[in-house]
């Protein structure tokens, strides 16, 4: 293998390599199973609730839709719990603190997300599902997959780390084109104008959301575009691999889009 010598594990992806054997395909959706080895020490046979995941990159309107779905489901008589990334009581500010140092490598980054996810899964999501709740997850492990893989982490390694993850009953992926997303991200903070009036300095683009740890462009805007394009590409791959329900959000009418989400959700409840 003459070409392979060029890829000796002596740069970033190498550190992130490796499993000893090909991992088995994750089980299909609609089965209350784990993504990999699971949580061997807890029982999960009695999960009567439903786990619904809303995925999508920044600016796609996830949080708006999750809030609307939450109200709608409650009016329909379902007990609902919402959960999102990096909201675990265990990790608390640790992830934000670590990000501030700007010195995380892709493995550390991925494992921190995994720790946060495991904490919320065991202490919030699983108990809620046992109690018969509908759990709405504003992002799930798929976001962590995309962020790790575009930084060069080995796909099998990342999937393996999240092997304790519970398979959702439904994953809805909100899709949009890059040019629509840029516009929405720059306008996404409703408090922006008020803060500006008050004389505050506000970062329009987030360092990590722009992939600035990889410096993918001459300035933060260029880096943002290149980074988000990569994430969109990974989500496209995952939509096929994991069978996401893809919903286009290009049209401006939020209510119309939300109606389509409700239809997909109704089908599994």
């Amino acid at each position, binding site marked *: 293998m003459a070409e392979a010598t060029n890829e000796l*594990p002596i740069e*970033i992806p190498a550190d992130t390599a*490796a499993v*000893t054997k090909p991992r088995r395909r994750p089980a299909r959706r609609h089965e209350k199973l784990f993504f990999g080895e699971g949580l061997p020490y807890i029982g999960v046979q009695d999960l009567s609730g439903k786990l619904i995941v809303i995925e999508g990159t920044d600016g796609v309107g996830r949080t708006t839709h999750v809030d609307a779905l939450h109200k709608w489901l409650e009016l329909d008589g379902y007990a609902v719990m919402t959960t999102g990334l990096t909201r675990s009581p265990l990790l*608390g500010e640790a992830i934000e603190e670590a990000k501030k140092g700007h010195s995380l490598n892709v*493995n550390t980054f991925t494992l921190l997300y995994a720790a946060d996810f495991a904490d919320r899964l*065991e202490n919030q999501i699983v108990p809620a599902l046992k109690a018969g709740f509908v759990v709405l997850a504003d992002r799930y492990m798929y976001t962590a997959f995309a962020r790790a893989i575009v930084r060069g982490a*080995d796909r099998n390694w990342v999937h393996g780390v999240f092997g304790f993850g519970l398979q959702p009953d439904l994953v809805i992926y909100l899709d949009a084109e890059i040019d629509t997303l840029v516009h929405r991200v720059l306008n996404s903070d409703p408090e922006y104008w008020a803060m500006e009036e008050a004389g505050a300095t506000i970062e329009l683009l987030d360092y990590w959301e722009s992939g600035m740890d990889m410096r993918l462009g001459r300035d933060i805007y260029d880096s943002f575009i290149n980074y988000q394009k990569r994430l969109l*590409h990974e989500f496209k791959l995952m939509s096929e691999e994991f069978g996401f329900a893809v919903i286009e959000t290009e049209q401006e009418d939020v209510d119309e889009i939300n109606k389509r989400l409700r239809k997909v959700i109704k089908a599994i409840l």
Partner: protein
Amino acid sequence: MSPALAPPMPPQLPTHLLRASLHEAHPYTGKLIIVEGIDGSGKSTQLDLLKKFLRSEGYTVFYTEWNSSVIVKETIKRGKKKNLLTPTTFSILHSVDFADRFARYILPPLKAGAIVLADRYVFTAFARDVVRGVHPDWVRNMYSFAVRPDMGFYFSVPIDVSLKRILNGRAAIKFHEAGMDLGLHTDIRESFRIFQGRVLEQYDKISEEYGLTIMDATTPIPEQQAIMRAYVRQLLKDYHPKPFVDVPEPSFIAFYRDHIET
């Protein structure tokens, strides 16, 4: 992009490199020497003596210790204190610590051709976390970015000896050291015996699986140190530190440049 076409996949490392890590020698010019064993086995004392010896011989030696990275130190401390940790989060947080130290303190000196000493390595997680209840395959995959040590010493010691050493050195056994989080026994000493006994069983399997050199940790300290030095001298016989400088561009960077940035 046409929706009918499947998007191209980023390159993955060739299979023979994926398998490398813990079962095959690493390609770097430095040397990695690690020690393993339960608390009170005397491994830290031995590694410290080895460090001083190697430095006095003129070698460039770096040293790193389990659970010492600032990134999650506070989180682990808080989690342990308030008993917030599950077997899975306990395991992942320790791997965050390791991943951080690996990238900062282990890999760079190894590539640069130096000697790295590690007080505990991935095998600590393989032994302890499995006893706590996580799947052995899962934890092995999580640490699969680590390289195989050039030399690993396992300090084998009976439970009662280690218990005596711990109690001589400090006032009390620590809560997690005794596996009290598992509810094995209400008496901390009994819990320690049960928990560390199971950890020992795992270590025995691991020593065989990964070819660790087994040290009899009940013998006098200078005797053990002499044996360690003999092994290390043997290892360093053909050691010619020379840094790796010919590093290629990572393949995933080229991939996204060619396929995504149009």
